[in-house]
């Protein structure tokens, strides 16, 4: 079942690539490692679940917009001020992990169920060389890749995109030429959290979401981003797809409990060989 393994791996990797993209966008532009984005994304997923019976489109919008706003606000009132006062990665680790616990606690308090699964409509099945795949999974993969392409296009061809690049490459000069860098940071953080939310929604409809999923998605997203070269979007995607495969094959061949052992073993191995990740960690997009 090699083909089956490949397809499952690609889909897992594709969905994982959304939080990875979120991490990459936030770190690439602000230089801040945000460990809370997974939990914030799952919070958005719970919101979507809550409103799902009402109207699917609106429910998804509520979750995604909520996460964008949270990302925007925490950057604006918390992370940018800390960074202006010279905060280092240790401080950001503590602050963003604490934020994650805050949102986890809020989820526990607000939502009636600790574990949910999102009933999004299935799109039928597709037959790829004899293997039957749910259309929805293919859609998830295409969506992730499409998002990547859109971000790249925005960056290359719009004025906003250029000012993002400028901000990530030389913050001081970006300020000097008149870019509103604090706004760039806030928007990047909002987009990162919104991407994590989309990832959580897909995850929640293919598997399930619980209070811990956010940490899993966030840390996995982070680790995958580091393996790809943190801040490097292409590296992140490639690494997500590879890791998806690793998870899928180790699951098939050795059983689910070996998945994370193999995964993290490979992560450590890659980082010993290439400490800056597969494609290097230039803080560019």
């Amino acid at each position: 079942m090699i083909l089956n393994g490949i397809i499952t791996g690609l889909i897992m990797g594709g969905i994982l690539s959304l939080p990875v993209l979120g991490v990459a966008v936030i770190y690439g532009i602000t230089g801040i490692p945000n460990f809370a984005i997974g939990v914030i994304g799952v919070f958005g997923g719970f919101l979507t679940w809550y409103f799902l019976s009402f109207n699917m489109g609106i429910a998804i919008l509520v979750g995604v917009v909520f996460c964008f706003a949270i990302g925007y606000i925490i950057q604006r009132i918390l992370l940018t001020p800390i960074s202006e006062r010279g905060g280092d990665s240790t401080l950001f680790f503590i602050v963003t992990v604490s934020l994650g616990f805050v949102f986890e606690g809020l989820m526990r308090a607000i939502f009636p169920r600790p574990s949910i699964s999102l009933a999004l409509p299935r799109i039928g099945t597709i037959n790829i060389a004899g293997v039957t795949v749910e259309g929805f999974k293919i859609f998830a993969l295409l969506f992730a890749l499409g998002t990547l392409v859109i971000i790249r296009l925005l960056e290359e061809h719009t004025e906003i995109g250029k000012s993002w690049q400028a901000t990530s490459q030389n913050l001081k000069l970006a300020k000097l030429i008149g870019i509103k860098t604090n706004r760039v940071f806030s928007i990047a953080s909002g987009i990162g959290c919104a991407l994590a939310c989309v990832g959580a929604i897909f995850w929640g409809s293919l598997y399930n979401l619980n209070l811990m999923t956010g940490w899993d998605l966030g840390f996995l997203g982070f680790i995958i981003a580091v393996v790809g070269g943190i801040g490097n979007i292409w590296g992140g995607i490639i690494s997500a797809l590879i890791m998806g495969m690793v998870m899928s094959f180790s699951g098939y061949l050795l059983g689910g409990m070996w998945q994370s052992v193999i995964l993290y073993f490979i992560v450590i191995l890659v980082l010993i060989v290439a400490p800056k990740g597969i494609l290097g960690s230039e803080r560019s997009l």
Partner: protein
Amino acid sequence: MSEPILEVSGLTACYGMISALKGIGFYVNDNEIVGIVGPNGAGKTTLLESIAGSMHIKEGQINFLGHQIERWPVLKRRQLGLMLVPQEGNIFPLMSVKKNLEVSVILSNRAKKEELIDRVYKLFPVLWEKRRQIANTLSGGQQKMLAVGIGIASNAKVMLIDEPSIGLAPKLVTKLFETLKKIKEDTRTTIVLSEQNIKVLNIADRLFGLEAGEIRFDEKTENLSRDVVKDLYLGSIS
């Protein structure tokens, strides 16, 4: 003689315990080229960064176009017409030359943008030739031209340039200085440059001598001898 367009008084700044500027008074008239000369560590960079707002000052006033700007953030000073080309880190390293310039005209309107970028290409034809090249693959001298080009593209009323001649071949220094003079004449831009190169005498209308965080002289260039200026540099070597 007109009023100063930029005036600094009683400016002090420090890095932790080290005081880098000890009560600087300094002014620039409209459409002048003013040179700040002084040995390494004199405080030239600190002074320019303080004026642009990327360095926090301790005390003192900075008046620009009739506004007290010493507490303004960088962006607001930029919008009023100040621009600094820093001594280091003065390009966007991973963008093409073209994109470096495109992003530098961000505050201008659409029609003006093209005009400004064209102006930079006319002044530095080599940048036009290399427009598709990634900035950090340019030679050191070409990167310096790009940095000054970014300053020109910003279309500032007062352009501060921190040691543009560092690392340039003597011929290129002469050429760069001529270009600065041309910018001043063509666009009525006021230019403040810090320098250690004696050729600054050829373009500056006035020179300020800065040493150990204090102003040592303030003279029209025609009244200054090369020896006086040289003395100040040589002071740094001993």
